[in-house]
């Protein structure tokens, strides 16, 4: 018959291994693309492998009696929740809660510019903030993708989230769009927009705006964040 403390003896290494599996599952399933900037993914992979290895070693070199069962129980209860309930963040909810941020390098004049039709939404925002004269871009072709972000008292903008580390630091960047007549827009929906850059006057100030010609719903990209 098993000793009363035997389960407690095995619990900590089991929980450690379980968290190793959680990290590996997050890495392997692509879930990390929704949570962390790509530069940090390898850290999660290595940590998952290390936790599994350490769990194996802890079983191999088991002391006669282990302590600290309560934290192990807390971690034991949390692991299946993280493993089984995938993250489904609403980007527009995140974006509505946060101010649009400045982007690295935008205070300087950009020295390298890709052709207009190859610029991503973030490239355009960076450029427009670096050199804001809207007449410079009038008529330039635009092909960008992003999610629909509602804005108070104005038409929805097309937006992306820039992430440096994890979702906690996600910051929205959006670009105003003149949508085609009758376009139905739902918050969080991902769209590919093509058209040209135009100029509009808002509150007496001229600004660049994308004049959308075609709007095509697309699936959420595998890696939806921009650095």
């Amino acid at each position, binding site marked *: 018959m098993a000793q009363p403390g035997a389960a407690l003896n095995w619990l900590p290494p089991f929980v450690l291994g379980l*968290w190793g599996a959680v990290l590996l599952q997050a890495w392997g399933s692509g879930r990390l693309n929704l949570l962390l900037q790509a530069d940090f993914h390898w850290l999660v992979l*290595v940590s998952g492998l290390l936790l599994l290895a350490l769990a194996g070693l802890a079983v191999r070199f088991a*002391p006669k009696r282990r302590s600290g069962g309560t934290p192990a129980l807390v971690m034991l209860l949390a692991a299946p929740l993280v493993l089984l309930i995938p993250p489904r963040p609403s980007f527009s909810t995140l974006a509505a809660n946060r*101010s649009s941020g400045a982007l690295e390098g935008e205070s300087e004049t950009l020295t390298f510019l890709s052709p207009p039709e190859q610029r991503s939404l973030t490239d355009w925002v960076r450029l427009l903030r670096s050199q804001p004269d809207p007449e410079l871009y009038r008529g330039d072709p635009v092909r960008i993708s992003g999610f629909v972000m509602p804005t108070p008292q104005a038409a929805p903008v097309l937006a992306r989230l820039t992430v440096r*580390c994890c979702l906690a630091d996600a910051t929205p960047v959006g670009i105003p769009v003149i949508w085609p007549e009758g376009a139905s827009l739902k918050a969080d929906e991902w769209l590919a927009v093509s058209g040209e850059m135009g100029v509009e006057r808002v509150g007496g100030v001229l600004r660049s705006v994308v004049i959308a010609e075609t709007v095509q719903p697309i699936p959420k990209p595998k890696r939806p964040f921009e650095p």
Partner: protein
Amino acid sequence: MGIVLKLGMNWPDGSQWQTVWAVFQGLLLEAIPFLLIGVAIATAARAWDPRGRWLQRLPRHPLLGPLSGAALGFALPACECGNVPVARRLLAQGAPMGASLGFLFAAPVLNPIVLLSTWAAFPDRPWLLLLRPLGSVVIALVLTALLQQLSEAALLAPDLLEERRMGQPLATASLLDRRSGLIGNQPLSPTPAIAAERPSMAVLLDHGLREFLELGSLLLLGCAIAATIQTLIPRDLFLAVGQAPTLSVLSLMLLAVVVSVCSSVDAFLALGFAAMVTPGALLAFLLLGPVIDLKSISLFSRIFRRRGILFMLAGVVVAVLLIGQWLNLVLL
């Protein structure tokens, strides 16, 4: 708009809770590797110097002690989740209090990764690159001096205190602290792990594992609180005070506590609102977050008693507020 939370009026809807869950996972999965690194360094220190003979040689001078601890940040780069187990190990092995606390409070800023990311985010503000590490050292000195006003028995968590006492000559402990003989409680018997000259692989693994699970369970709690608050409270509330000198510093300090972003990337987050706030508020954000935030505050319960945590909180808030105010006075 439905997706904007009206504080106190609407219960968060499904998409908001799903976003809370995602932010929680993001914070947690990003922090676990750093926690593992911290526990690994702490376990290695235990294996390398089981009686703390080398660590106890760190300076005990009231100024040089914290400075040497802060300088260890360059050798042991860890952000705020990883440095708690390392600082705890320093204390447990009997390292001088000043050096251990100096490491605890300054190492999350004084490491190459954090300084490089600060420079990358703010190449046009050299004063920030100078004042961030400098301010961090000042805060470490202030907090170390403040916390040392408490006796070790009043400051340190009971199990840490016990382990620290075992590693030190008995003569260094007061009769009350020894809790032996005629005064105080029952004498403490040294645990086999501490009594052993060089711990076995089984003991090392068991302690490392226990430490990881204990800190991990506290980290879960911190991440859950941080994710909930930062998703449900609009960030603009913290930035609304803009250029008001004192309020902007206070509100950015509050934001640093709430967002709980790792110190290696917080400069990039600060870049997003740097133009909207005063220089003092910006510096305050970059100084306070690495010392304390919602994600890491629970971890401190493994080092300090409640009174120590309250002292630390009061000290760091006052110190950062004064530094932010001073900078605003100089630059505005």
